[in-house]
């Protein structure tokens, strides 16, 4: 894991234009909240490990353009150039995928979550192992609190997707089902 990360950082450094600040220094504030090795230990803050680069790029773009609102991220992305966005999203994709959650899965909730995931065919766009593809994010092993928060935001349309697929998908998922769905997805790896 460390080797991969170091290699990724080295690669990222090579591709960056000469800058007073190294890429490592620039990425440090990201990793401080999102986790050093792809796994976030911060409440409501997503793990970035193994995330799809095109998805990460879209999110960073949306933060910069204030199409997705979250003040700390809007602030961080404000001055990033297009190339910066690409460099950071490519870097994010090289982080090791999130660690297996330490809390034990609740059997009943897992069963309900699996049924919901099947019924809504989450695996069509997010892949059978929920690793995501292209502009569709990895959700396997994502933090449960972040998943629940995000699904709720899609449901009440307070988070606008790049396109509107998730707003549509969440129409028939009831509020009280979101917890089980999040629990199930957080325990995929």
């Amino acid at each position, binding site marked *: 894991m460390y080797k991969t990360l170091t290699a990724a950082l080295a690669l990222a450094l090579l591709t960056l234009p000469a800058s007073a600040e190294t890429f490592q220094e620039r990425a440090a504030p990201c990793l401080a909240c999102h986790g050093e090795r792809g796994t976030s230990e911060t409440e409501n803050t997503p793990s970035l490990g193994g995330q799809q680069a*095109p998805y990460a*790029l*879209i999110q960073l*773009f*949306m933060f910069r*353009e*204030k*199409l997705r609102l979250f003040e700390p991220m809007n602030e961080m992305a404000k001055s990033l150039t*297009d190339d910066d*966005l*690409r460099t950071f999203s490519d870097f994010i994709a090289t982080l090791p995928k999130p660690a297996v959650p330490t809390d034990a*899965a609740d*059997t*009943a909730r*897992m*069963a*309900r979550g*699996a*049924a*919901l*995931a*099947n*019924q*809504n*065919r*989450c*695996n*069509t*766009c997010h892949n*059978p192992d929920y690793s995501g593809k*292209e*502009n*569709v994010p990895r959700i396997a092993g994502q933090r449960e609190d972040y998943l629940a928060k995000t699904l709720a935001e899609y449901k009440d349309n307070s988070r*606008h997707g*790049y*396109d*509107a*697929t998730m*707003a*549509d*998908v*969440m*129409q*028939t998922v009831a509020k009280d089902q979101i917890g089980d769905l999040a629990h*199930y997805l957080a325990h*995929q790896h």
Partner: protein
Amino acid sequence: MIDTSFASRRLLLAGVFFSAFTLCAAAQQPATPPAAPAAQPLPPGSPMIGRPDNEAAAKLAPVAPPPIPAAADKLPLAKLKVPAGFNIEVYASGMANARSLAQSDKGTVFVGSRLVDKVYAITDKDGRKSVKVIASGLYRPNGVAFKDGTLYIAELSKVSKIEKIDDVLDNPPKPTVIYDKLPKDEAHGWKFIAIGPDDKLYVPVGQPGNNVLHDADHGQIRRMNLDGTGAEVYAVGVRNTVGFDWNPETKQLYFTDNGRDWLSETVPEDELNRVTKAGEDFGAPFCYQGNIIDQELGWGKDCKNYTPPVGLMGPHTAALGMRFYTGSMFPKQYKNAIFVARHGSWNKSQKQGGDVVVVKLNKDGTVKSVEPFLTGFIEDNKYVGRPVDVMQLKDGSLLVSDDWNGAVYRISYGKQKVAAK
């Protein structure tokens, strides 16, 4: 374009039944596999509804464009092909998700967007183009139209205007809302708008999903006065039109309409329709392409009760922006022909569309031929660009927008006068 799909209950039930036997999610769990979930329809806007359960179909999903516009030197210009005698050049670039086009009487070109929040203006000063953002913070501002100094902008669920736009390009006021009695559905909610020869503003409301029954507020084209008053329904049975224009000779409205997803690889084809009288019904979601009764919703219906299309535009090709050519720069055979931008399919294993075609009409206004005009946007079954709208400039050249690259191209005929960048 991204067409969201919708619900076929029969297929849905089949899907739920099928998935109970697949390994996907449940089998990965140590827990006892759950009982089949209670029958609960997928949301009408879900692109998954109606999807048959097979491997090839499972690979298909709406295609999202890159968020960042391509740099001018990274545009696929060298790959784009036009007929002999025509030239293509970059008109302007750097406009994320460039979509619908409109032009002011002073020559300013306005460009809407769908996945970002901006409307752009391209100005031309002695051949030098510059791009300004004239409105931002809008919600899916796909539609733009211009009349008597005023720019009209259509967001997902409202239409607004900026008066004397050419005088305020450097410091435009916020658009003033003129009409907002529109549904808020995301699926097919973005809008193309245009102003007709009757000086009315035409505003479509798509069906809120791939193949759905809906209320009387959807699946139509409305028209209204330019101040938003007097709105009335002009055409119904319209699934999702993202481009229309009026025949310069007959003044009849022609519009493209996108057919439903998931029926098959080869049908239904997108439609080119003609409105001969107000209130006409074009069939969706009961009858597609004039002769296919929908396998789920069409029971008890008959295609002969709906106006058939005058032309078919290919399966899933996403025929979007279209305009009649009235200029004199292009050869005579193009006079009063229709240029149609086909955004390109997602719901098809081998991509189709992703080009501009020219539709030539018979004297009676029916379609004589559909021929390729601008091609080269698909490479190895992947998009290198996606055309959205076409618009004739005053000099008779043709603009084409590309939301994949955030650019607008210009097609001219004859000895090329290279426009300075």
